[in-house]
């Protein structure tokens, strides 16, 4: 029984309680539901977290921005080709701090998802992000990126317009900024498409978000030639926030309410805002050069290998 089945059961019981109307019994039953949630939803498997990260009701970037920012002005277009709707960007204020926010936006309905291309950006999306980030560098604004994508779009036009080059350029330029940069992985963090916004001083991750080299389905197909083994792949891939914190890939986990972010969105937003502000204030103490060097040194250390036979370098 995975997390979605459990959630369905809880929702079913809750709707039945409302029908009853008897106060004594309802309060008693509510307590029981809470107990059930405590028991069943506290220890989640990796696959459960994958399902939660892709949940239909999970808050999207726009909802996060609405809560985080006192006001937000969206800026569009990469000045080269067109405006990619799967990435939104703009200027906002968080508790009086003026920041540039870049976010990958999933849709809530099918129509919106088609418009947003299921948050799978084309090269022009990454070029728009780069343009806005360079603008932030010019005006000394911190950059906050919200990551929520299954991956960069693997399509015909995307290849024609240089998907690989766009991502590579982002990786290089993001390393070079002298303003504080923070990435928040709020849902799916899929491979290069996520990393292209994720080379930052601090990487914050929501508890039930995932961050991986490719989707569990793709992993199972490539290594075991069977996409139905995705749940097994999820366990092997070490893609949850707790695994990644252990590896040192991410810096901080933001706690989510029991059963996933969508059970109590405000609490999730509140925790996220607190984490962003704390990291932002700690990064503000560093100079631009320190920020760039510490960021580069951080990524220089990543890797898991052994070395013997040291030559002159």
């Amino acid at each position, binding site marked *: 029984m995975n997390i979605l089945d459990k959630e369905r059961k809880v929702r079913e019981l809750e709707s039945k309680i409302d029908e009853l109307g008897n106060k004594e019994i309802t309060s008693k039953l509510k307590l029981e539901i809470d107990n059930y949630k405590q028991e069943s939803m506290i220890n989640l498997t990796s696959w459960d977290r994958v399902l939660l990260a892709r949940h239909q009701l999970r808050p999207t970037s726009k909802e996060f921005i609405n809560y985080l920012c006192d006001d937000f002005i969206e800026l569009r277009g990469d000045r080269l080709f067109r405006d990619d709707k799967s990435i939104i960007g703009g200027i906002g204020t968080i508790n009086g701090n003026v920041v540039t926010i870049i976010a990958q936006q999933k849709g809530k309905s099918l129509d919106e998802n088609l418009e947003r291309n299921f948050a799978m950006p084309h090269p022009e999306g990454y070029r728009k992000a780069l343009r806005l980030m360079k603008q932030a560098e010019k005006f000394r604004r911190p950059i906050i990126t919200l990551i929520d994508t299954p991956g960069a779009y693997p399509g015909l036009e995307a290849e024609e317009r240089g998907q690989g080059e766009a991502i590579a350029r982002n990786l290089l330029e993001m390393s*070079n900024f002298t303003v504080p940069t923070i990435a928040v992985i709020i849902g799916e963090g899929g491979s290069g498409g996520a*990393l292209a916004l994720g080379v930052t001083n601090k990487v914050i991750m929501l508890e039930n978000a995932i961050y991986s080299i490719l989707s569990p389905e793709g992993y199972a197909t490539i290594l075991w030639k069977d996409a139905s083994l995705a749940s097994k792949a999820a366990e092997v891939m070490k893609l949850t926030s707790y695994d990644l914190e252990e*590896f040192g890939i991410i810096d901080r986990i933001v706690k989510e309410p029991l059963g996933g972010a969508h059970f109590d969105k405000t609490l999730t937003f509140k925790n996220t805002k607190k984490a962003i502000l704390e990291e932002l204030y700690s990064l503000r103490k560093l100079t631009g050069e320190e920020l760039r060097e510490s960021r580069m040194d951080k990524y220089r250390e990543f890797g898991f*290998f052994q070395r013997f036979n040291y030559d002159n370098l």
Partner: protein
Amino acid sequence: MNNLVKTFENRRSLKSKFKIARTKSKITSSKIDVPKGLYEKCPTCKETVNMKNTVDNKFICKNCGEHFRVRAIDRLKITVDSGTFVEKGHGYITLNPLFQDGYEEKISDYKAKTNLDEAYIYGYAEINGVPTVIGIMDSYFLMGSMGSVVGEKVTKSFEYAMYKKLPIIIFTASGGARMQEGIFSLMQMAKTSQGVLRHSKMGLLYISVLTNPTTGGVTASFATLGDIILAEPNALVGFAGPRVIEQTINQKLPEGFQRSEFLEKKGFIDKVVNRNDLKDTLSKLLILHRRIR
């Protein structure tokens, strides 16, 4: 221009008497690798070709001009001046961070087969007498995929070039990031890009030569960040693999899609260079960028 090339060549022959002082790497002394059969079928023109002639012809099919995939060692032989290559950064051990079944055995298999410690080698070399740092990916080693060790060695090769104040040439041939090492492979994309950045900030030249195939995480990091990007004819270069794209858009891809000529037309590659001209093109570019002290 040719005079310049000649003067550098003469300089090399003058230098050659000091050759003994150089440490001879294991790689240059090993034999050239001729495929098993004497005659083999060319995958493009379906014509049987004499393998020995093909090897002499820099692994180009005499019949149709198809550029075959080349091992790192053979690539060295046809690109750099013989005896000048000094391998650096040998001796990394690939570990198994995600405890994948059979990954260690696979690696040791490939190690024995290819005589390399990983899918990437780098070192000091001279091309027509011009000193440079050269890095070569080997697509025969687990599809040249980029794991922790490859990422580290690529970054190290940029750092070595910075230390020596030399330009760097990288021949890419890779299927992308290595799945078995999971998130660590992904982070190598950021790491190698930063290697390019630091090298570039010193005002040094980086030429990347895209060879068949260059896809995935390598395309999306250091391969497309070169100051000058060259490519071999008919090499597959792209971010997503052709099969993935076909599945996504549900239709057949046009002929020549994602090939180097296509990308040259779209403006992502400076020049498609035939393998026969590659060495001279590289040495000319290096001479044009030489530092005047």
